[in-house]
């Protein structure tokens, strides 16, 4: 018998607090050492190889045309196309789950078509092809307004609003629409998966309370589906940030990569211009990841411990309510 166990036995015959050595992880230390060496080599190459041109890259990052490209062609295009993509995607996803066979077929065809075309091809087509096919888009109060007017022999062709497609086709708006249409196809699948992940008992409980179908979707099903929908949507948004660089195929020049590239080729600072674009993309992506964290927390409501702030807010609401 060792003195240690004798000692504990004299104090009490029941085991007490555990004072044990933690499990050792020698592998972690080895990994750390290897990575530290690799990182040191990398940093040393950054510092000693002047071709990276970090100082120049920083300058390029702050050029006005680059900043304009960043704001319009990257940030606004991402936000705009994701808004279209999420809203249209949820609608298409709900359509696909509809009992109405026409709606679900339309939803299926939409997804099939827009998931099938590469974004680059879609953007290029919207940029030149649509303007070639439909140089002018006339919008009338009725379907087939123009044909109807011609047939009835009216002098006015019933057009209320007319759009010059050729002028519109290489604008930021067209790019946002193109990316948004494409995104909606992916978002539709994500939304469909999210909606299907909600327990059917939830819908039944809401039905039993006399809620209408639309309200059940908005108040019961979608809020729960969001928990499943948000992480892949964050992923999609980050992918979209990078896909906005495809807008140069519209062609759209107020776009980040187009602009850094232009500066790079003009001033023969190719590598610094790549570094500048990379840095901006990484910065935007990092900001988005923070946003995603907060969204996930918001829609994880009820599925983990509520945050302290939430609890306080709820308490305040309750206090306000009980005064009536």
């Amino acid at each position, binding site marked *: 018998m060792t003195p240690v166990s004798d000692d504990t036995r004299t104090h009490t015959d029941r085991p007490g607090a555990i004072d044990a050595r933690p499990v050792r992880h020698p592998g972690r230390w080895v990994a750390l050492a290897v990575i530290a060496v690799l990182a040191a080599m990398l940093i040393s190459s950054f510092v000693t190889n002047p071709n990276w041109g970090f100082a120049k890259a920083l300058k390029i990052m702050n050029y006005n045309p680059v900043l304009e490209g960043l704001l319009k062609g990257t940030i606004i295009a991402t936000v705009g196309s994701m808004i279209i993509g999420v809203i249209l995607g949820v609608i298409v996803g709900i359509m696909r789950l509809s009992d109405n066979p026409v709606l679900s077929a339309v939803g299926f065809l939409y997804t099939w078509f827009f998931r099938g075309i590469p974004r680059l091809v879609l953007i290029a087509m919207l940029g030149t092809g649509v303007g070639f096919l439909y140089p002018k888009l006339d919008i009338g109060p009725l379907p087939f307004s123009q044909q109807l007017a011609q047939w009835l022999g009216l002098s006015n062709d019933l057009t209320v609003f007319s759009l010059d497609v050729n002028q519109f086709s290489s604008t930021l708006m067209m790019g946002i629409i193109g990316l948004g249409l494409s995104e909606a196809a992916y978002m539709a699948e994500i939304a469909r998966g999210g909606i299907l992940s909600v327990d059917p008992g939830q819908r*039944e409980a809401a039905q*039993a*309370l006399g*809620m*209408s179908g639309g309200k059940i979707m908005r108040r019961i099903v979608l809020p*729960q589906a969001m928990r499943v929908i948000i992480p892949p949507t964050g992923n999609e948004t980050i992918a979209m940030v990078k896909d906005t660089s495809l807008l140069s195929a519209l062609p759209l020049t107020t776009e980040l990569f187009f602009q850094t590239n232009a500066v790079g080729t003009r001033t023969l600072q190719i590598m610094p211009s790549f570094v500048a674009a990379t840095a901006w993309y990484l910065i935007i992506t990092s900001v988005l990841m923070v946003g995603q964290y907060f969204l996930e927390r918001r829609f994880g409501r*009820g599925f983990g411990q*509520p945050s302290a702030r939430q609890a306080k807010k709820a*308490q305040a609401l309750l206090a306000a309510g009980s005064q*009536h």
Partner: protein
Amino acid sequence: MSTATTTSPTTAGQSGAPLVRAVNVHKAFHGNEVLKGIDMDVHTGEVVCLLGPSGSGKTTFLRCINQLESIDGGRIWVDGELVGLEEKGGRLHRLGEKQIAAQRREIGMVFQRFNLFPHMTALENIMEAPVHVKGVGKSEARARALELLELVGLSDKPQAFPAQLSGGQQQRVAIARALAMQPKLMLFDEPTSALDPELVGEVLKVMRSLADTGMTMIVVTHEMGFARDVADRVVFMDGGVVVEQGPAKDVIGNPQHERTRTFLKRMHA
């Protein structure tokens, strides 16, 4: 007056027309007939317990009453109103979604697996339907929800999310949620069979006190003690038909049919 097929027949009944009248109710799933002509009257204030072996169609029948399933044959009336159908120009028409929702508002339902909304607190669960279906003001709905929480013995839990409550507590919130719509009729589908044994009592106690207030209740249950003490009438179902019914002490204490006897023997074993 409309024809006899659509008006609730008012022949039988100790206190006028029954609150629920089911006549010859048939329901099949993909050709598999689950309800084979159920007849049942439930009067206002009555507590009826539905007993029967697994697969006998108890859940299906309850779901037909509030139209979570639509029936293939027969008729159901709730409070004199034909369920899921209306007569126009001498023909029956299925009701639209809005009208079905309106009929369901009169009926509260409690599920085996609670089905509370997990993204809402207990209080929000109870307030949801009054505010968003009936259009009751928020402060009024909140006051009423707090009263209901007190009624089910959970006045200390308004801000708890379902995941933070025990099964028994969740089921009591679910009862309060159904009561918040002030239904004429409460349907319970095995409300305690998903619970740990020590939590069954607290839910049954709430149901007992609800029965004492005169609420009309149809309860599918395997709790023989509850059926014996609380039910005014027990209905034994097997194979999609009502085999036997009557006062609890008769059906449970002195069953007339072999199938009832076999079932009860298995329950007590």
